[in-house]
């Protein structure tokens, strides 16, 4: 009909005129319909949700109508939507409920902080898009078990660079090896029980140094960068640089069996056979604290990367949690009936995996200290390691098994399995690589485990491709951002909380000085009303109407 009309009048000289006309007519028609009952429509005008919706729609229509210079309307007006789950990922705590009466300054302050945090959340969610890499997984054909796929097959199937990451170092002379990868995942440190220590740029297979300390080696650990490492030797703790030159012999740390390095605190935590847990600040070279745990030989140790708490496993089946600020264990959990053999904590600090002499493998929710899953391994697990993406590797004898999703779904068989030559002594997933390093009686084996490493790295935090210059820059920045050991606690967000004990103490003092409680709730006194409305009964009734407010815990602080 419209086309007919236009034909009968005149051909439009511009294409947008035609569009406009059509639209005008449509509008007229709409208006005509609306004109039938204009008063009722106006009568309905109120702030109902329906109305709001309509307004919103109109606004959107307007947005759509808004034309660019080219005359075309934007098909996707406004900002791009952010998926809800991604928003959830970057959420920090819930908003607080607004009390009815607020000081205007408080109101503006809260509103601004809310706005800022919302913006931070949204922006972070929006820019999550910029992490393009995705993790892959090994998938078997129908009826094929992924755990039966051999390493050689995988290495042959993948590209040459990745295939070269599967290799074996045959070092049968100096006994079982402990291993450690640096934080960026580029450098590998191996330490044989009989004194052989070597650091290797394992991707290029370039040997950085190789020494024999002529003493038994209990454990080795990279310090903050690949230029220094610590070796726990028979008696003392030693620090060497990447050329194999001995930098320090720390006599305060004796009989060290296991070590953990807390990268953001620059702390080296050591557990000794004399049941001492000691912390060494490697940035200033001082011992922070030495804690006598009074639990015997400490040869099972791991750290919680989320809150820098050290976990220790004991022969009586318990796992204890330690911070440098407290002389007694923060938490003591009974995990196994036999001794604890190995521990691992997930990157986000949610799950802890333990294995014990009772041949069980257990998964705990470490936030609530509750057991989640329990598995029975036929031969028990002597070493555990968790990858960045949550794969669990467990070594039983000379078999290395890798499990997927041990905490969410009950696992019946491993994701991958591999037999190495000799008993496994050290197990470590390489950061940012799909590689699992295994140190054993016969040397070192690098396994390919698809889906193990985090595909997206934060170049400002740990850049696997950094140059020497960048490393120096990073070192300075990391030192400036070093977190003091006092700030280690079970809940890392506790620093943002008000210190309630001190607050209450101060408040008490204030109440004493003032003679009254300035923060106390005012008791409800009913107003005097005329015409018999202030009779005793009425007053009681009015009091009763607000009585429930006293019972309710309105202050969120009191709730806690």
């Amino acid at each position, binding site marked *: 009909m419209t086309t007919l009309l236009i034909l009968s009048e005149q051909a439009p*000289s*511009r294409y947008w*005129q035609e569009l406009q006309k059509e639209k*005008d007519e449509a509008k007229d028609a709409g208006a005509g319909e609306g004109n039938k009952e*204009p*008063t009722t429509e*106006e*009568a309905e*005008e109120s702030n109902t949700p329906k109305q709001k919706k309509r307004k919103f729609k109109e606004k959107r229509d307007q947005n759509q109508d808004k034309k660019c210079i080219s005359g075309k309307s934007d098909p996707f007006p406004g900002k791009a939507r952010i998926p809800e789950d991604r928003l959830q990922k970057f959420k*920090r705590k819930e908003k*607080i409920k607004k009390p009815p009466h607020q*000081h205007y*300054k*408080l109101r503006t*302050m*809260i509103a601004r*902080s809310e706005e*800022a945090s919302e913006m931070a959340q949204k*922006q972070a969610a929006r820019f999550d898009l910029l992490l393009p890499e995705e993790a892959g997984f090994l998938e078997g054909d129908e009826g094929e078990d992924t755990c*039966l796929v051999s390493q050689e097959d995988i290495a042959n199937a993948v590209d040459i660079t990745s295939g070269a990451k599967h290799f074996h170092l045959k070092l049968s002379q100096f006994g079982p090896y402990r291993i450690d990868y640096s934080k960026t995942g580029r450098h590998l440190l191996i330490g044989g029980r009989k004194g052989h220590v070597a650091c290797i740029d394992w991707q290029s297979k370039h040997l950085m140094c190789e020494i024999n300390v002529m003493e038994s080696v209990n454990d080795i650990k990279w310090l903050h960068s690949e230029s220094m490492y610590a070796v726990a030797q028979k008696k003392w703790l030693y620090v060497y640089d990447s050329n194999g030159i001995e930098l320090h012999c720390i006599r305060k740390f004796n009989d060290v069996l296991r070590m953990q390095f807390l990268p953001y605190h620059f702390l080296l935590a050591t557990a000794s056979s004399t049941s001492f847990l000691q912390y060494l600040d490697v940035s200033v070279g001082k011992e922070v604290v030495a804690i006598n745990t009074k639990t015997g030989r400490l040869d099972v140790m791991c750290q919680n990367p989320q809150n820098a708490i050290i976990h220790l496993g004991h022969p*009586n*089946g*318990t796992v204890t949690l330690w911070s440098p600020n*407290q002389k007694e*264990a*923060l938490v*003591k959990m*009974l995990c*196994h009936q036999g001794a604890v053999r190995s521990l691992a904590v997930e990157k986000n600090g949610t799950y802890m995996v333990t294995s014990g*002499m*009772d*041949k069980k493998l257990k998964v705990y929710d470490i936030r609530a*200290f*509750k*057991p989640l899953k329990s*598995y*029975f391994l*036929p*031969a028990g697990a002597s070493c555990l390691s968790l990858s960045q993406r949550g794969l669990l590797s467990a070594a*039983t*004898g*000379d*078999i290395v098994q890798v499990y997927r999703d041990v905490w969410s779904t009950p696992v*019946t*068989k*491993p994701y991958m399995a591999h037999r190495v030559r000799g008993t496994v*002594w050290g197990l470590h997933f390489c950061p940012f690589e799909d590689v699992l390093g295994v140190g054993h009686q016969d040397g070192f084996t690098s396994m390919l485990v698809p889906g193990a490493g985090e595909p997206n790295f934060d170049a400002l935090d740990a850049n696997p491709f950094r140059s020497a210059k960048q490393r120096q820059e990073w070192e300075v920045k990391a030192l400036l*951002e070093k977190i003091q050991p*006092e*700030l280690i*606690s079970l809940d890392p967000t*506790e*620093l943002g909380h*008000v*210190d*309630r004990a*001190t607050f209450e103490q101060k408040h008490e003092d204030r109440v004493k000085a003032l003679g009254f409680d300035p923060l106390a709730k005012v008791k409800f006194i009913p107003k005097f009303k005329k015409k018999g409305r202030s009779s005793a009964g009425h007053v009681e009734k009015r009091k009763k109407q607000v009585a429930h407010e006293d019972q309710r815990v309105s*202050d*969120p*602080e009191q709730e806690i």
Partner: protein
Amino acid sequence: MESEDPEMEREDAEDEREDAEDEREDEEDERRRLRLVEAITALRGGRKKPLGERSEAAVRVSEFAVTAEGERQKVQLSDLIEGAQQSPAVPTQTRKQLQNLRRSQKTVEQPLSRQESERVQRDLAFQKAAVHVSRWKSVVTQNRRSEQLVFPLNQEPSGPKPLEKVVTGWRVQTPLEQEVFNLLSANKQPIHDPVLSPAEEASLRAMSLEEAQIRRAELQKARALQSYYEAKARRERKIKSKKYHRVQNKARRKEFLKQFDQMVKTDPNGALEELNKMELARMKERMSLKHQNSGKWARSKAIMQQLELNKDLTQKVRSSLSNLEEQEDRASDPELLPDFVNDAEPGQVSSNPWMRGELSAEPAEAQRSEQEVAAAAAQKEQHEEGEALLRDFESRRKLRQKEEEEQEAAGQDVEDSDEEEGPADQEEEGLSEFRSLFRGVAEGLKEAAATASSAGCSSAPLEGGLIRIRTVEDAELLPPEDVELLPCSESPPSAPQEEAPPTGQKARGSKKRKRNIELKEVLTKDAKTVTVPLAPTLTDTADGSDEELDQRGLIMEAFAGDDVIADFLRDKRKQEDAAKPKVVDLTLPGWGEWGGQGLKPSSRKRRRFRVKVAPAEPRKDQHLPGVIISEQRNGSLSAHQVSALPFPFENHAQFESAVRTPLGRTWNTERTVKKLTMPKVLTQLGTIIQPMTEEELARKKASAAGAGKEDPHKTKDQKRRARKGRKRHQKQLKQGSGRTEGIRCECKVDLVD
């Protein structure tokens, strides 16, 4: 005094004049009198100077300089206007006015003193200045509260400009462009604003003023009507009178019925529909919970009692009889046993030889057997050694059990002195009584049950479910664990493991038993067995301190758990006890009664002098049996925490939520960081920041007014506040009576606007 003086004088003077008119002859007397008057006035003070005639010649003679014709006489108004009264040139109106003026006796007020006048002037000047200055107040508060101030003001916004602006600011330069634009303008095509063609603009301008006015009036009317209607509806809705609503509902119903009757005649189909609707409504009402007497009133006590009474009165008399019969039935039925048969039998260990030691060792055996299955059978030759070890463990365990029992007994003595014993004792008594009875019956029935038990031997352990014992036969049917287990040992090894812990353990104190079982449950939570395709060929020979995993190790491993749990529980209890607030006993022996060796203060006294401490806060690990959480405070962290709430915050939650978002680059995108760390004042380098001018104020006001009209961002809250403010000022206006107050109010109103 002074104010009266002139009047007096004037009166005097008038009298004199009349005298002079009447009796001119008595001039002598008059002069004397005048002299007297003069003398009197002189006595008062020589303030007043006689008005002398001015001698200088001047064009204009001031009216104030005019003196009366006689000497020392004052000029009266009548003297001045006498001529005017007579002359015809003066209009009558003026004459009347003059007469009125003459009649009025009011004197003019004295002028204010210099100080006072200055004060008034100052006051006025201040008010003016205040009005002038207070126009800035809104700007000042706005600036104070704004998140960021950018100086100098009115900077050109940097960054890309919108295309339209660029196009409009562009001038035609080349001849080609001129030609193109000529063409465009000739064809009435848009040049400056390409989005709107002239036709569109014309259509925009189509609505005339009159039309718009009519439309506006219509809208206004509609709005008014709507508001009336709304107000009415609101008022009616608020009426709480039940009677009113009842009457209204009734009227409505009546009207509806009337309409319905009419409808039946006119539109039978519609009526049918209405009828259906009514039926449906009735059905709905019947389905609903209404009229079921489930309300608060109906459930009130009095009504319930009434109903109860009614029920009792109307019920059959038979009920009590039948009850009796039922009881008899139960009693006579020898097969049915009371419920406490299902409870554990505490005293059994000593009485039943089967329960004495073997059963307590049984789960251990089971575990061992499992271990043996897991370990290779090659180590059989070391059995003797293992058995010795086992015996060792056995003795240790028994020792520990005894120890614990003793401890418990001691603990119970201390703990439950007051109330716990009562009911427990009673129950115990009932149990023992029943047990003696039960044994007698059981012996009688043993032969009968023998066949059944032999049959049940194979089935019962396999089923493994929980059976509730109701009859003696049932009890007999239970797997007689001690006797029958040996032939049935081929049953899967998991079955004995699943069975409850030995009865000996059951007999322990209820509290501890519970916890123990819980912990066991936690530890032996059904573990899922994982199958590994490759069997390890090497065992962990190099494990730990090179100890060999032989039979000895295996057994150690198997029995480690027992010690572990008990140790842990002991540890936990110790910690709990240490944290508990202690009761302080302030009893002094020998006060108020005899004291000495072997004499204890009376329990009454002890109770009286015992200071009870408030119970400690519940521990964090109270619901976690396998966890001990330290209750120590982390003092090192508190040095870095905020311990006093900063000013505007009222509670912890507000403050904590305000600081919950980190500011650093590690956690935020660049834009967020910039926004979060935005400086309060931003200035441009090298520019002079001029003070704000009046024009700025005017511009701001205009923009604010423009925004205020149709600003969607103006929140409800702001509007409400604005309204409140206006009201307050109106109130003040009403209150203000004096002139100055009025002015002040005006300036405040200015402020608000």
